[in-house]
């Protein structure tokens, strides 16, 4: 939960109230009477943590049919949480100054009180690591366990994007390898040389993913084999003298060599990091391995980018449902429940577009609302729902439907499939068009009969990862002549690149490629040339 939240408010609730009072939920009265509280008061202990976790897991597995990875809860101090933040939440990470920068920034925001710390961080590994903060009250810890250790965790394990792109079993091994390798390289080649490669690779982070979908599965054994092979290549290169002095027949370049070369290089290639790793002429083996590490990192994070809305929605729905069920059984006191509700309502707050503090759609809020809406469609469908969602309307199997959705979709397709007209009305969503050519913004669609489909489409497009990252691909690499690397940006809707950033990034690309790099921006439809950038070898 990366929401800002006032800890003060959470501290206020004491959780001392007796468990007798009836809740507002429609639970059978008998269940409420059994009051066997899991914990009392705001303080937590390892015993209450374990007991609460077990109770929560029992509900999750037994009643909701969830199937998360086994969990390791790690209690950390706020300092350590801050640390974890900066290292992109990873338990092990290679050293790089940019993490220090992030850390310095976060620390200042935190110390000056602009921002609260996250309540938890959960790592997509098997067993999953879930960091919880020591400052949290017990009610917050329970929420966190239900949210992260159950909700996120189930999502990680079953969502097809995660299954396809990441391998939870080897995440930590791969990270350890990365750390060791980077530190090793620093010792061998000096820190500046390593940083130069990493800086450049980081600049291409969002272009280091195979969007076509074949997620690369890292395999420690294969990694070792690959390193051994590279070492062998190096030894071969050392015999270069011999290879060069022994005469061989000079072969005349054949017709169509260029075409064959292009094909061999797999052009056009949208994974810039992969291309450079494989084909940059001047890189050493260790530099290529660094590129591969960064590429692996990009691949690891890609599912999180593609499923932010669903992931948070799933986790939030889980913690809400589980806490309510615990409450219905009288396992949570009134005070703790109030604290939970307070926390929950802060997490799912969604200011209007014109309110102060509006920062875009809150994925927790929208995700949670959509999950609730699916449950509603399953159990109490209206005629409209029946027309929009014939497959699930009134099927009376809400949890099963949700589990199916969590497993099979990503944000973009999820919105396309499940955003209902009713939710659009409730949220009063509207689509706004910002055209640089027009003098003013224009409202494209609102919550009416003509608008629903268009809003669904616009929102789904907004979540489409391809729409978020500019489409840049390698179109040519002249390996015989000047060795110029040609990149092309397919411009969608006239949205060109920021020129300053392009020049800076190109310098990094050129450092990796070793020769001149040209980037051309062409309109995706008309193929008209919009801009050309040249970064020439120094």
């Amino acid at each position, binding site marked *: 939960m990366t929401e800002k939240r006032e800890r003060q408010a959470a501290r206020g609730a004491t959780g001392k109230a007796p468990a007798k009072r009836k809740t507002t939920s429609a639970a059978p009265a008998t269940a409420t009477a059994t009051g066997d509280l899991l914990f009392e008061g705001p303080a937590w202990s*390892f015993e209450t943590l374990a007991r609460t976790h077990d109770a929560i897991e029992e509900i999750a597995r037994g009643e909701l049919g969830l199937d998360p990875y*086994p969990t*390791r*809860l790690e*209690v950390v101090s706020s300092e*350590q949480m801050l640390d974890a933040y*900066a*290292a992109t939440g990873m338990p092990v990470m290679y050293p*790089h*100054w*940019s*993490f*220090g*920068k992030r*850390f*310095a920034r976060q*620390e*200042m925001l935190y*110390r000056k009180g602009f921002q609260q710390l996250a309540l938890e961080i959960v790592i997509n590994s098997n067993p999953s690591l879930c*960091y919880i903060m020591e400052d949290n009250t017990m009610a917050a810890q329970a929420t966190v366990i239900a949210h992260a250790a159950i909700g996120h965790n189930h999502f990680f394990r079953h969502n097809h994007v995660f299954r396809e792109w990441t391998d939870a079993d080897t995440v930590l091994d791969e990270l350890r390898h990365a750390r060791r390798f980077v530190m090793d390289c620093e010792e061998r080649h000096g820190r500046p040389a390593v940083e130069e490669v990493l800086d450049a690779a980081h*600049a*291409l*982070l*969002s272009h280091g993913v195979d969007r076509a979908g074949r997620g690369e599965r890292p395999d420690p054994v294969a990694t070792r084999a690959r390193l051994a092979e590279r070492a062998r290549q190096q030894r071969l290169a050392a015999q270069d003298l011999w290879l060069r002095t022994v005469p061989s027949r000079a072969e005349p370049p054949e017709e169509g060599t260029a075409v064959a070369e292009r094909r061999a290089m797999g052009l056009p290639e949208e994974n810039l990091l992969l291309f450079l790793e494989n084909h940059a002429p001047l890189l050493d083996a260790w530099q290529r391995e660094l590129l591969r590490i960064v590429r692996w990192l990009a691949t690891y994070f890609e599912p999180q980018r593609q499923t932010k809305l669903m992931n948070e929605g799933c986790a939030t729905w889980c913690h809400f449902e589980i806490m309510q069920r615990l409450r219905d059984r009288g396992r949570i006191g009134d005070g703790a429940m109030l604290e939970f509700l307070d926390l929950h309502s802060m997490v799912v707050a969604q200011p*209007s*577009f014109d309110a102060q503090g509006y920062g875009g*759609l809150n994925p927790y809020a929208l995700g949670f609302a959509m999950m609730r809406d699916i449950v509603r469609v399953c159990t109490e469908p209206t005629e409209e729902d029946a027309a929009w969602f014939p497959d699930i309307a009134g099927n009376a199997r809400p949890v099963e439907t949700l589990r199916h959705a969590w497993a099979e979709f990503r944000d973009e397709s999820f919105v396309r499939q499940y955003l209902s007209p009713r939710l659009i009305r409730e*949220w*009063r969503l*509207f*689509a*706004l*068009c*910002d*055209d*640089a050519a027009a*003098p*003013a*913004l224009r*409202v*494209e*669609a*609102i919550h009416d009969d003509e*608008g629903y489909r268009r*809003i669904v489409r*616009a929102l789904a*497009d*907004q979540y489409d990862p391809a729409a978020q990252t500019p489409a840049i691909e390698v179109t040519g690499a002249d390996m015989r002549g000047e060795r110029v690397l040609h990149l092309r940006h397919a411009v969608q*809707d*006239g*949205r*060109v*690149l*920021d*020129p*300053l*950033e392009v*020049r*800076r*990034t190109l310098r990094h690309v050129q450092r990796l490629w070793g020769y001149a790099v040209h980037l051309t921006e062409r309109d995706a439809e008309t193929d008209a040339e919009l801009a050309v950038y040249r970064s020439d070898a120094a």
Partner: protein
Amino acid sequence: MHIVDRRQNPSGRNLGNRQRFINRARSRLRKAVRDNILERSIEDTSSGERVVIPADDIHEPEFRRDESTGRRVGVLPGNRAFREGDTIPRPRGGGGGAGGREGSAEGEGEDGFAFMLTRDEFLDLVFEDLALPDLVKKKLRAEQSSKPYRAGFSPSGPPSRLNLMRSLRRSMVRRAALGRPRPEAVAELEAELARLESGEIVPADGSAAKARIAELRDALDRARRKRAAVPWLDPMDLRFNRLERRPEPVARAVMFCLMDVSASMDEEMKGLAKRFFLLLHLFLERHYEHVEVVFIRHTQRAEEVDERTFFEDRQTGGTVVSSALREMIRIRDARYPPDDYNLYVAQASDGDDVPGDVETCIELLTDDILPSVQYMAYVEILSQRGQPGFAIPRESDLWQGYAPIAQVHPALALRRIAQPRDIFPVFRDLFRREGVAE
């Protein structure tokens, strides 16, 4: 489910990364920090310092769309009165003209990057490249200073020094020596027993299955008991890295701070002098663990005072500069023999002295003080009330006296301070490490 308490783990895993970051931004930071200190007093930096530096060196570029171009559609919540086709004036502030940043490839339009430096990092940057000159001579005395060194292993110690490799090696040796059965061996016995009992196999030597079963049971029982009796890891296996404290030679040094608090110095001038000494004090405290500081203030007579009185008291009176020099000599002879100590002197005054005393001062300096000290800095505080601009400051009595000595004696340095922003540059100038250009 496991719960692991990580709170005892060292935090600050990112210290290394933070250090890298600061190194990267070092030149910019240095400038920011020094600009920062020019205008204000260093005491304010008690907890940490917020600095803003240009983001150029630490910017992480990527291919990013220019948000002010093209056409995009966004979905927003909370529509109140809009209908399809309505137009809304573009909000101010966002966007900006397209191509406005075409000019140079570097720097423009970049926001500053703000973050907190810790007090230590801040002071490190402030005092970077400064040193007491000539801290070499004299006896190297090793008294209470010592440093921990690795020295073998010991059977006891704090958990953080547990040596895993050694401990496990000993555990392995002990288990082997005591014949603790391996889990695989037990499993093998169990498997054989199960297969015998189920009749899946019969003993190869033709003996009765029953006898073999009894034999196996017995063996299993013994193996299990042995496993229980011989622990996998015993407290006696544990080995800890041992550290030994060894004395470290240190050069001992003492700094004499001589301050004029006579009535001819107004409050602002005293403030300047105090700030200079405060900077000096901080610098010594930070960089030299073994430098002692002696505070002497003088009017017509001089006295040694403690730090607090030196910086906070507001005593005032007449002026006899030589009294301070005499007091310094007295203390030196009593407590800091020049053979054992590196001596440093910093003197601050407005340069006024009673007639005839300047000669005494010159005599004391050339005959006694300068031959015995490593370095002496004289800082003259100029009045800020003087006519600024065209008035050439009159050379003070003391300056006139000291200047010829400084010409011939490299250990004496003279500087002037007229306003707060001079303090830091003068200070840096006085204590700049040799061979380091500003």
